[in-house]
């Protein structure tokens, strides 16, 4: 069997569809993860001990256990809990569960990123706002977060790239994305290497494109530093 027999337009389209799924999952989980991260960071720097405590448990628990375990737990555990509470069965969609699980996971890391970004802003910025009569919300929105965002942009991009790659973990609950697609094709032709190489090239292209645009954005934001 030659290379051109395996890398047909049909198969390549199949792989690209998988890549789109990987990207889709990365975008969804990044969005939800960032929202969770902003909430988590707000809780961590709040004055309420209870909120701080909840955020700390969330972050420590998620960072202290493997993501694969979290995905499996949600996929297998959620229907069980649902049945215990309502008494009826539920069929869960692996894509939905996967996105939820990875978002929760990513949110924990983003919480720490954003918390660090906010706390890295010089105390003088807060004080200047106070002397100018700006209330807390405005200070956050107009002064602290824009500067914090610039600081956390590089690690946030890393997080997004990580999500493009980590989206393959949901193949363990039956979802098909790029890597799983490559494995399916590999099994069909009894030749994994060709499709794994093809998949890795597609991963590399996706991550490089993201890095490229992130660098451009970073340079533009750094212009007035």
């Amino acid at each position, binding site marked *: 069997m030659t290379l051109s027999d395996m890398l047909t337009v049909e198969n390549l389209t199949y792989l690209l569809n998988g890549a789109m799924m990987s990207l889709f999952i990365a975008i969804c989980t990044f969005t939800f993860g960032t929202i969770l991260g902003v909430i988590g960071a707000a809780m961590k720097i709040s004055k309420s001990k209870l909120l701080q405590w909840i955020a700390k448990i969330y972050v420590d628990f998620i960072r202290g256990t493997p993501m694969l375990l979290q995905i499996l737990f949600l996929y297998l555990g959620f229907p069980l809990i649902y049945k215990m509470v309502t008494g009826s069965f539920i069929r869960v969609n692996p894509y939905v569960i996967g996105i939820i699980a990875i978002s929760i996971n990513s949110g924990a890391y983003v919480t720490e990123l954003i918390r660090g970004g906010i706390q890295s802003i010089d105390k*003088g910025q807060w004080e200047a706002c106070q002397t100018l009569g700006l209330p807390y919300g405005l200070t956050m929105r107009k002064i602290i977060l824009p500067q914090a965002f610039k600081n956390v942009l590089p690690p946030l991009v890393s997080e997004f790239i990580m999500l493009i790659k980590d989206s393959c973990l949901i193949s363990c609950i039956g979802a098909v994305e790029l890597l799983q697609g490559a494995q399916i094709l590999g099994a069909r032709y009894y030749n994994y290497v060709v499709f794994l190489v093809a998949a890795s090239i597609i991963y590399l292209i996706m991550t490089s494109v993201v890095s490229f645009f992130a660098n451009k954005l970073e340079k533009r934001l750094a212009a007035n530093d």
Partner: protein
Amino acid sequence: MIKATNLVKTFGKVKALDDVSVEIKKGEIVCLIGPSGSGKSTLLRAIKGLEEVEQGEIYIDGEKFDKKNIKQQNKMGFVFQHFNLFPHLTVLENLTLSPIEVLKMSKADAEVLAKDLLIKVGLEDKIQAYPNQLSGGQKQRVAIARSLAMNPEFMLFDEPTSALDPEMVCEVLKVMQDLAEQGMSMIVVTHEMGFAKKLSSRILFLEEGKIVEESSPTTFFENPKTDRAKEFLEKITYLQ
């Protein structure tokens, strides 16, 4: 009038403010002088509500000062040693942010005001610059203009020239002098003895969290009442 009564503030074991009371009337220019660690910056910051005090009260025009009360906050402008301009905003935006957001001024009015103030401090050509494109002296002049944009009755300066290169001190002092001559009430923590001597109406000399001498500038510099002030002046005028 600003009145502080019996302020006490400790950092660990150090008493930064040890039962300090002070009164500053409108039109006065009061300089706080003293060795480092004497509590002069802490006193200024406490008056503006930047420093929580353990005891004592601040009154502004007879009303108890609440740092969350924006109207009271706006009566006092504050200039920091390290400027604390907003690095991601242009000079113009630094000046207009608070007038627009806090005083609810229209954008156009705020910009006219900002331009007037920049002309006052001699920086009208830097209106679109970002703080990082300015020298230290220019940054401090922008910071002064930013405070003035809130139309304060008192201006508080916390060592405004201490972070500057020597050749830039003058331009900032000049702006402060202009303000003084226009009748602005000021409280100034400074090591610039020339400024204190020439422009202040009263000098408060602090040491170890206490006001140890309160004099007119002539008395303070020519014939200080306390030995401590005498010693301090001898040290800082060494080789002059």
